[in-house]
């Protein structure tokens, strides 16, 4: 009776996330695949070959790969000295610099795009580069966004490397460079590979930044799916492109998972002490590179802030005052989509409301997934079943937001599930995007708990629920807060899926910013910058509060 009750409980806990992912991930993605590959129920690859054969697609795929490779390479090359300086060395203000380099990563992608455009547009401080809408601008923005991923992932491992192995190499006659090359770099390799595969994934699925910054001439698979769907209404081409994107995402996820497992193995042998030491003369190159990067990170942020305060009549808060209006140009454009239907503040309120719903959905699903996947059942059959679940749940971990949005668009708009006009559509889509982050935050913490601690509680008479309450929950506590913060911030800044699904009368803040930046006029640009500052402030506050809850041991994960 007791055993059956427990099994029933586990089955119910598994059923909810399984159903959620089946309806809101597997079905939309499956429909995309079907639309791209099937014609009248039979496999027909003519659409695939046609799409992939077109010069436009080849250019888009080529640009996606080039942008991802360039962005990843630069982020790693610049991030290594940063990881060294910020995690292996000790200097006054280190904590502040660490926090500063993290800011770009938590900024919504639309804001990153707007900040770079504010630099590069006519009249901006770097207008002379004539880089607006170019490959270089997009790559710079991607490096800006992903630098923190490399610094934090590699740095967390570097901080725990035993310095004595490098010292042993030095004693055996290796120069500092040689010792780094022969001893330190191989030891860091798993962390570097892990960071690089993650950055590659983020670059390949970058949407908001590219859409804002790339202009009409520049496009990636993600933006092309959006263009084909919303501008050309060619759903079949969009479906084929989504299929391509799924392949890219799955491949980089597999690589990321493989390197993370290697890193986890490697980390086990690390001592748990900090090994930081003061900065020395020999560290000068690392200091110079990192100082340059920090200036590079500050420039777009400053430009965004200054730009938001610049009005046609001089510096002031005019742009922020305009946020209570629906923007200028309504009369000029007049047509559909050119004017905002609500004020920017109203959109910000929508964003907050949607984020609350998306967060609780993502937490409910994410926590259940973590609890289930972190279990180590003793029955072989249960272990096998869990292995299948594990793989299935990890599938959407690097989901492309555009794929989710597009998938929702083509599946949830008619019976059996017609959510087209429902207010839950956007929160659910954002929850699908946020669940991976919740899982990534909580799962390592749960997995770090020694199974024997749970066994000790069970032997002392604690049932499964009490084991969870006494062993898992106290450890998880702070991380739960962190995950809530992450989910909330992701939802606030979410643009890829929302851009497909938000109704014109209920836009979110990122959608409004995108509409404003696409419209002519200094007023609209100023409003876009001011709205970006508002959005950036909101996410930074949320993440800042959440970061205070971060458990030290979980620092290695994002």
């Amino acid at each position, binding site marked *: 009776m*007791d*055993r059956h009750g427990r099994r029933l409980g586990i089955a119910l806990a598994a059923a909810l996330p399984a159903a959620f992912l089946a309806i809101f991930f597997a079905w939309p993605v499956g429909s995309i695949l079907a639309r791209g590959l099937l014609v009248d129920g039979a496999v027909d690859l003519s659409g695939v070959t046609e799409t992939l054969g077109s010069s436009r697609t080849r250019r888009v795929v080529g640009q996606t790969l080039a942008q991802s490779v360039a962005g990843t390479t630069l982020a790693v090359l610049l991030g290594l000295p940063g990881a060294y300086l910020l995690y292996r060395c000790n200097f006054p203000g280190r904590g502040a610099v660490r926090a500063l380099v993290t800011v770009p990563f938590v900024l919504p992608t639309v804001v990153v795009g707007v900040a770079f455009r504010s630099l590069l547009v006519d009249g901006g401080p770097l207008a002379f580069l004539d880089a607006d809408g170019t490959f270089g601008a997009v790559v710079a923005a991607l490096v800006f966004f992903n630098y923190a991923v490399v610094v934090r992932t590699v740095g967390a491992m570097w901080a725990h490397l035993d310095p004595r192995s490098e010292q042993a190499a030095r004693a055996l006659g290796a120069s500092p460079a040689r010792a780094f090359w022969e001893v330190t770099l191989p030891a860091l390799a798993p962390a570097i590979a892990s960071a690089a595969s993650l950055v590659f994934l983020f670059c390949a699925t970058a949407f908001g930044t590219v859409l804002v910054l790339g202009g009409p001439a520049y496009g990636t698979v993600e933006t092309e799916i959006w263009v084909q769907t919303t501008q050309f209404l060619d759903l079949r081409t969009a479906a084929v492109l989504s299929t391509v994107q799924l392949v890219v995402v799955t491949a980089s996820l597999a690589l990321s998972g493989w390197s993370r497992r290697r890193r986890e193995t490697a980390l086990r042998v690390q001592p748990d002490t900090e090994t930081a030491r003061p900065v020395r003369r020999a560290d000068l190159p690392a200091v110079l590179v990192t100082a340059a990067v920090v200036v590079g990170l500050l420039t777009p942020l400053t430009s965004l802030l200054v730009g938001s305060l610049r009005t046609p009549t001089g510096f002031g808060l005019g742009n922020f005052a305009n946020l209570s209006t629906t923007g200028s140009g309504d009369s000029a454009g007049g047509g559909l989509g050119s004017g905002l239907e609500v004020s920017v503040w109203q959109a910000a309120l929508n964003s907050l409301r949607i984020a609350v719903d998306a967060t609780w959905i993502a937490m409910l699903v994410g926590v259940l997934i973590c609890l289930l996947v972190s279990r180590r059942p*003793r029955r072989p059959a249960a272990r096998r079943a869990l292995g299948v679940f594990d793989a299935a749940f990890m599938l959407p971990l690097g989901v492309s937001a555009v794929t989710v949005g597009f998938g929702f668009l083509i599946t949830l708009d008619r019976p059996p599930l017609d959510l087209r006009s429902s207010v839950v559509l956007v929160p659910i889509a954002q929850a699908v995007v946020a669940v991976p982050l919740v899982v990534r935050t909580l799962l390592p913490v749960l997995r770090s708990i020694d199974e024997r601690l749970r*066994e*000790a509680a069970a032997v002392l*008479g604690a*049932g499964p629920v009490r084991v969870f309450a*006494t062993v898992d929950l106290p*450890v998880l506590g702070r991380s739960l807060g962190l995950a809530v913060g992450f989910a909330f911030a992701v939802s606030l800044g979410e643009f890829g899926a929302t851009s497909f699904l938000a109704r014109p009368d209920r836009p979110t803040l990122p959608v409004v910013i995108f509409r404003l930046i696409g419209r002519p006029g200094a007023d609209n640009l100023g409003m876009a910058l001011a709205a970006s500052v508002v959005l950036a402030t909101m996410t930074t506050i949320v993440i800042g509060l959440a970061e205070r809850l971060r458990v030290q041991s979980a620092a290695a994960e994002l």
Partner: protein
Amino acid sequence: MSLDVRELTVTFGSTRAVDDVSVSIRSGEVVVLLGPSGCGKSTLLRAIAGLEHMDGGTVSWAGADLGGVPVHRRGFGLLFQDGQLFPHRDVAGNVEFGLRMAGAPRADRRARVDELLELVGLGGRGARPVASLSGGEQQRVALARSLAPRPRLLLLDEPLSALDRGLRDRLVVDLHDILASTGTTALYVTHDQDEAFALADRVAVMDAGRLLQTASPQQLWRRPRDEQVARLLGYRWFVAADALSAAARPSGVQPPDVLGLGAGSLVADPDGPLRGRVTGHRLTRSGTNVSVIVDGLGCMQARAGSLQPLPVGAAVRLRLEPDEVAVLGHPGDAHAGTG
């Protein structure tokens, strides 16, 4: 008979970690499972606790099958090698955990915690955070925690292995006294023969997943069932009784007996019946160990009582120390003491 394990089997993939093991423990008895690392003894212990999936066999208590009883309802205590104290609770909070699970009233819990901390020699330290304790103290707290709910069976999984030698020697004495004074029924897993000797009412020798022999410590060391068991107990050379002259045989030893000899079995003695030649020596705490070639028996080691080294090449006379010699079980009584 209180605990009764019948034909228990646990497999990991294609490995049979525990292979058809049967063992019983009487109320108040301390049974030590002795075996090399990786022999499956910890797995057997965990299967009895209900922490390991069983592929065959039964575990029962007082005749009632425990197969469907989950870990937390078995009323067994378990002590891990490294304590596994709850890091977010203080010493008293750890010790009272099992009592809280059992729903004991607050006053009873407090009294029992004080009593147990006193018992393990940590009286008055209930409010200390567990991280501030030394390894030995943590293990004492873990022992108090597992004893607090008065488990009907205490399972101990190499509880002293993580500690250094001196601490281990002291704690093993304390542990013996605590188990005896509380009348605790216990199954104790170790690879250390000294611990087994110090604690056990009966010792069960395990290797490669199988239980080889169960006997009292004296019986086991004097009459191991066969050469395999004798080797696990540290006997290294095996001599048929008829290879020894009657004078050289310990009393009561007759052909076709086979003797097992260990490092202390041969002693240098000017009047000894055996002759040999020294090939090397090394100092130990209890005297000199010499390597000797014994006439008719081959290369062995012997103990030379004094610390004066015997020169290499010297002729030496030796005798067998009767208390340090094992007589391997006769085929007929190979299972003496099992069960």
